[in-house]
């Protein structure tokens, strides 16, 4: 039988029982779309983390201290004085609802720091001023915000002097940052920078647990890292298992690893459902072969070779899988877009789609070959004897 006819015949066979075909494909659709959604969400959230790290700027070192005391503001001065260190800024995450009048934003990231933060992070002001030492001394409730936050809360970036509330406590906007043009939410455009003292005003403690440092020289990362590490373990006497100093590259590398592991895990879980779907395809094909025993006998009597019969049923299984896979890919991408619109992280990649397509093909072949083989081995005499 010629190739085109085989496909056409297979198509008409599958469409003969549309309900059965749809149900068989359902397993594949669920499996494939799961793979796409789960891997996409894993990829997406990791990309968010990466973006955040990249937003810090190339050479920035991050020091995290997780012993009982943490660091105090005085340590910032000391760190700044170390050789090889250019500038240093503390960073303390703060929680709380961001509101301005009736408006609210979910996207804001509140960090408590000092007047060095902007230069360490290489951020530029578009309007207004940076935080200052005075703010710190006066324990003022002021803030510097990014363009997305400004737009979300005030509808404009021209909002210096306006007031927003963090957890109900009013803060005056003293500066607005330039847009960094990144589209992810967790970056400078969604930043709300408050003085360190404000963190305690909002009910937190004064412990500093993370510090960003920029090396003095362009290629000074190793030196800066060594110096920082030395200060923390030496001068501060913090045991080495209670702090970490990482360059951005190291952090990216670590997050890469986490991403890979997570993707593999999620992908593996989703693959189990693919195997189940494949078994479903095989089951239906076996039933189909049994039902069509007589048809096979007739065809053989008319001169069909074993390979003709095998090819016919294998093509049917393959068509089922490919169509199911295509629908699954479309469904997975659609769900991903939906998740994204709901604020969840999702990143579609061509490689996942390609893998999903390859998986569909493989399933069709692997789970279709056995029933097709059984069909081809039927002897015409027995087959014709069947009802």
């Amino acid at each position, binding site marked *: 039988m010629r190739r085109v006819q085989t496909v056409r015949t297979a198509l008409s066979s599958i469409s003969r029982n549309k309900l059965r075909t749809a149900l068989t494909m359902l397993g594949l659709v669920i499996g494939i779309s799961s793979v796409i959604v789960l891997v996409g969400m894993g990829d997406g959230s990791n990309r968010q983390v990466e973006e955040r790290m990249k937003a810090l700027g190339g050479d920035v070192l991050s020091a995290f201290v997780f012993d009982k005391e943490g660091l105090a503001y005085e340590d910032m001065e000391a760190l700044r004085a170390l050789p090889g260190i250019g500038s240093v800024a503390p960073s303390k995450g703060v929680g709380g609802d961001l509101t301005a009048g009736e408006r609210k934003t979910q996207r804001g990231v509140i960090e408590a720091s000092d007047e060095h933060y902007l230069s360490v992070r290489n951020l530029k002001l578009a309007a207004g001023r940076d935080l200052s030492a005075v703010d710190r001394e006066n324990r003022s409730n002021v803030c510097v915000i990014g363009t997305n936050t400004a737009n979300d809360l005030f509808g404009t970036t021209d909002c210096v002097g306006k007031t927003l509330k963090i957890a109900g406590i009013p803060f005056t906007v003293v500066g607005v940052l330039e847009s960094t043009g990144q589209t992810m939410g967790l970056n400078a455009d969604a930043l709300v920078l408050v003085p360190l003292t404000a963190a305690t005003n909002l009910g937190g403690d004064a412990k500093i647990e993370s510090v960003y440092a920029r090396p003095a020289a362009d290629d000074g990362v190793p030196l800066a890292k060594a110096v920082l590490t030395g200060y923390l373990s030496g001068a501060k006497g913090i045991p080495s298992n209670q702090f970490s100093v990482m360059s951005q590259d190291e952090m990216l590398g670590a997050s890469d690893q986490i991403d890979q592991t997570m993707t593999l895990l999620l992908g593996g879980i989703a693959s189990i459902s693919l195997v189940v779907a494949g078994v479903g395809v095989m089951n239906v094909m076996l039933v189909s072969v049994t039902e069509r025993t007589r048809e096979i006998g007739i065809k053989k009597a008319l001169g069909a*070779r074993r390979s003709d019969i095998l090819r016919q049923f294998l093509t049917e299984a393959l068509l089922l899988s490919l169509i199911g896979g295509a629908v699954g890919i479309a469904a997975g991408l659609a769900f991903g877009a939906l998740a994204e619109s709901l604020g969840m992280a999702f990143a579609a990649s061509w490689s996942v789609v390609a893998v999903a397509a390859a998986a569909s093909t493989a399933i069709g072949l692997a789970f279709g070959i056995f029933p097709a083989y059984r069909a081809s081995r039927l002897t015409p005499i027995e087959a014709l004897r069947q009802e």
Partner: protein
Amino acid sequence: MMTERKGTHAKERPSSATSVASSTIRMERLAKRYPMGDEVVHALDGIDFSVDEGEFVTIVGPSGSGKSTLMNIIGLLDVPDEGTYVLDGQDVALLADNDLADLRNRSIGFVFQSFNLLGSLTALENVKLPLAYRGTKSREADATARRYLAKVGLEGRDHHLPNQLSGGQQQRVAIARALVGEPKIILADEPTGALDSRTSVEIMELFKSLHHEGQTVILITHNPDLAEQADRVVRIADGRLCTSAHGHEDRRRAICGTAGRSDAEPTAATVRPAAEREGEAHATRANG
């Protein structure tokens, strides 16, 4: 067109040079056995059988006589345990599975009692199926199929499904399908078994007219009246052949036998279920 009669109770097999050359089918000492529990059934017990081009032969016998087995072997659906079968010059034993399928496709046109059309295909699609397995292009196959549908009197019914056709019409479609590849032999198994008497007559007329055009037809049946409508009748019982001449009052119920075998004693190993023995008794009575 009378040809030599086959297999009476002695050896022989008059094989003249001409008959060897023109024999479409040539079977010698064909045997086929099946195990059945502890016994062995001799479905075919040393058959010698030939058919020449253009003959119209019927093979008659009761159930259990081995006629279905013989038909399966003629139609290359089964292989004999012993003996030789030469079809259209090809020794079937030398052929591999794929070659058998190809030979079946080219040389044999099947017609079954229950029509065996594919219910989801139209008449036209059913008829052109054998051509698909030859690699014939679809458009060409369509044209040929239409021609044969017209030939069996079903012009205009191309797009009917089998369940939209009467029994007689379905059988005609099956016959068109059998003819479409222009095979050497039409092999019909109880073609009128599922039809009423009037339609049966029509179908038999169709076979006869095909025969008059030169088509070789082999028809298998248990109905002796039907059988007598052919040129040559071959009787089969207990896996052995005997023939009687058509049209002779003196129904020379030749002693059925095979070359070199004594037919007085049935083989001890032959097993026939009681029901079939009954059937044969009836047939014998009917033939008087």
